């Protein structure tokens, strides 16, 4: 499953990030394999989304969330 498909109240674990450029950026921001993610808000026009990553909150576009493989717990 992709992060972009995550629904509210589902908790998931990051499996992998596709794309080297993107994964470097995400790893630095603490979104790396094994980390827990949860959907928190969706912006007014359906995109971007705000997620909880581990202990903090960040936002990213759906197109980038599409490159993140997750597994729902």
């Amino acid at each position, binding site marked *: 499953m992709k992060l972009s498909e995550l629904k509210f109240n589902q908790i998931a674990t990051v499996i992998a990030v596709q794309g080297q450029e993107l994964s470097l*950026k995400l790893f630095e921001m603490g979104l790396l394999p094994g980390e827990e993610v949860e959907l928190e808000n969706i912006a007014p026009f359906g995109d971007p989304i705000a997620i909880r990553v581990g202990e903090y909150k960040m936002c990213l576009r759906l197109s*980038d969330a599409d490159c993140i493989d997750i597994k729902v717990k």
Partner: protein
Amino acid sequence: MKQEITVALAGNPNSGKTSLFNALTGLNHKVSNFPGTTVEKKIGYCNLNAETRAQIIDLPGTYSLYPKSADELVTYDILRNKAETNFPDLVLFIADASNLKRNLLLLTQVADLGVPVILALNMVDLAERKGVFYELDILAKELGIPVVSINARNKEGILKIKNLLLDESKHKKVTYFNINQVDQNLLNEIGEITDKKNPYAALQYAINAGVYLNNKAKQINAAFEKYNFNPKQFQELEILQRYKVIDDAVRLSRRQKTNHVIKNITQKADVILTHRIWGLVIFLSLLFFVFQAIFSWSAYPMDLVEMGFAWLNATIEKSLPDGVLNDLLVHGVVAGLSGVIIFLPQIIILFAFIAVLEDVGYMARVGFIMDRIMRPFGMNGKSIVPLISGMACAVPSIMASRSIENKKERLITILVTPLMSCSARLPVYTLLIGMLVPETAKWGPFNVHGVVLMAMYLLGFIAALASAAVFKLFVKSKGTAYFMMELPSYKLPVWNNLLITLYEKGSAFVVGAGKIIVAVSVILWAFASFGPRGSMRAIDEKYATLAMSADATMSSEELAAQKSAERLQASYAGEFGKWIEPAIKPIGFDWKMGIALLTSLAAREVFVGTMSTIYSVGGGAEGEDLNSIKHKMLAEKNEKGEPLYSVATILSLMVFYAFAMQCMSTLSIVKSETQSWKWPIVQFVYMTALAYVSSLIVFNIFS
């Protein structure tokens, strides 16, 4: 002479760095630029004891030492170069305890450059609310560096930090990443190319040099190829290994209280503040409130400033003997200066709102809800911060665009930000709106001035979006566009930080704008007071004979006013105004406005000062307050005897000032931020053309 140590303050964005910097240095700091760049350098001083003081350098917040954006590059540039005069003896690293893992990544990278690091654990209270505690001695032991817990917001733990900065025995160099897993031959070669002894620092510099810094890039890339080294792959491996070390340290020192799953305030607030309808409604209402406040809250302090200047003028006029100096001070310097300082209250209110919204964490949410709207215009959610701060001043806003990673999005943001109505236009709008509608006019519960002002700001925003859409077609794209950003927990603003920010911005405005305005006022006064010898003398002689003739139908005061008006017309300034009048006539401007357009090239707010000077030189010598200028301008008639400042002319002036590029400081900052003359020239041409064409349309519709 005191002993001095240099301390760099580093950390992630939103970790409380500014609060700690202010708590350590207070007002004892200065803001300047790094040599040869426009990058803001904040250096403060902090007395550690009677003999030693610390020089503290505030570094821009960053997530890693592989910079992705221009502001992160600054931090990297200071930490990488041991030969730099600002290279620190020690790094004071501040980390958010409520999100420790991600914060520590940068710490391990900084330490591996070979600088001693001490860790200040901030926001412990926030972590505790999530049920998380850290055993500091275990964390210190695992990381191998001193750790203190602080609360930067209410200055707790500052003494502990000072003691640690003094205690050299605790300043330890540690390494976290094992560089020896990289081919030794490659490391040797890179060490030679980069001239760095520390192999990690050398390799990291080499990786960044291949991407961001141009010198030696060829040599470095050749070496990478020779040893089959993939820098991206290495970075990925490096980050993951660092997280492993961090994971261990965090796991061993962390204590978690169970049953702590209450929804926190941030989560609850974001449900409403980023809601698909309420989020937008709240954002727009907030903007509306800000503009109402700018007008209603500033009325009283503005009266005070006005009274102060009136008193100053009267005092100077009385105490100095009549003559050129008296005239220069009263009609040149003070008239110009008072026209601008009077707007300081409004500017402070605007800066205060922006600073508070940033401080509480709301600005990040604005970026989040606006990203989708900005995207079709070639910008992203992060562009909203420069655009909104552009309402205060384009110069720092253009610098704020550094956080945008994508070059195309950043360039477009830079190009359109000056279309946002900045505080320098505020004086111009205030004067002109005041000529359109009476001050007391209400529209329901709202002040009509505030409503019209908001319309002007909206106009600027729409123009910025439209221009961005056009630029999107022409600017070439480089690299992928991301929009990734931390949404920090909501916090109460720190009033101490706010006051320091306002003091900095306010004094920068007074000193910066003041210098230009005094210079322009003096030059303008000279140009308006002197003219070609012959014609000036002719006027003097004409009025001398008129005054002699006994059958004068006019009082001596009226005569004097008419004489100065004629002198102004004959002066050098008048000649210039006349010279460009044919060009500006189609948009409804006369030669006096032509003079103001010229002087506004230095800065827009000079318009009001110029009008004050022109109408003060041209008219009598009564008070210089805003109302008298307004009345003098409204009383002005054109050659047909109709009011010169008709509705069409006032609207045309407003639109012209909304769009025209009349700010030398902005152009120079764009030049240095884009590293080329091309973009400031493009910006000047397109904005001025837009202003002229729009004014032409507005003037013709309304006249």
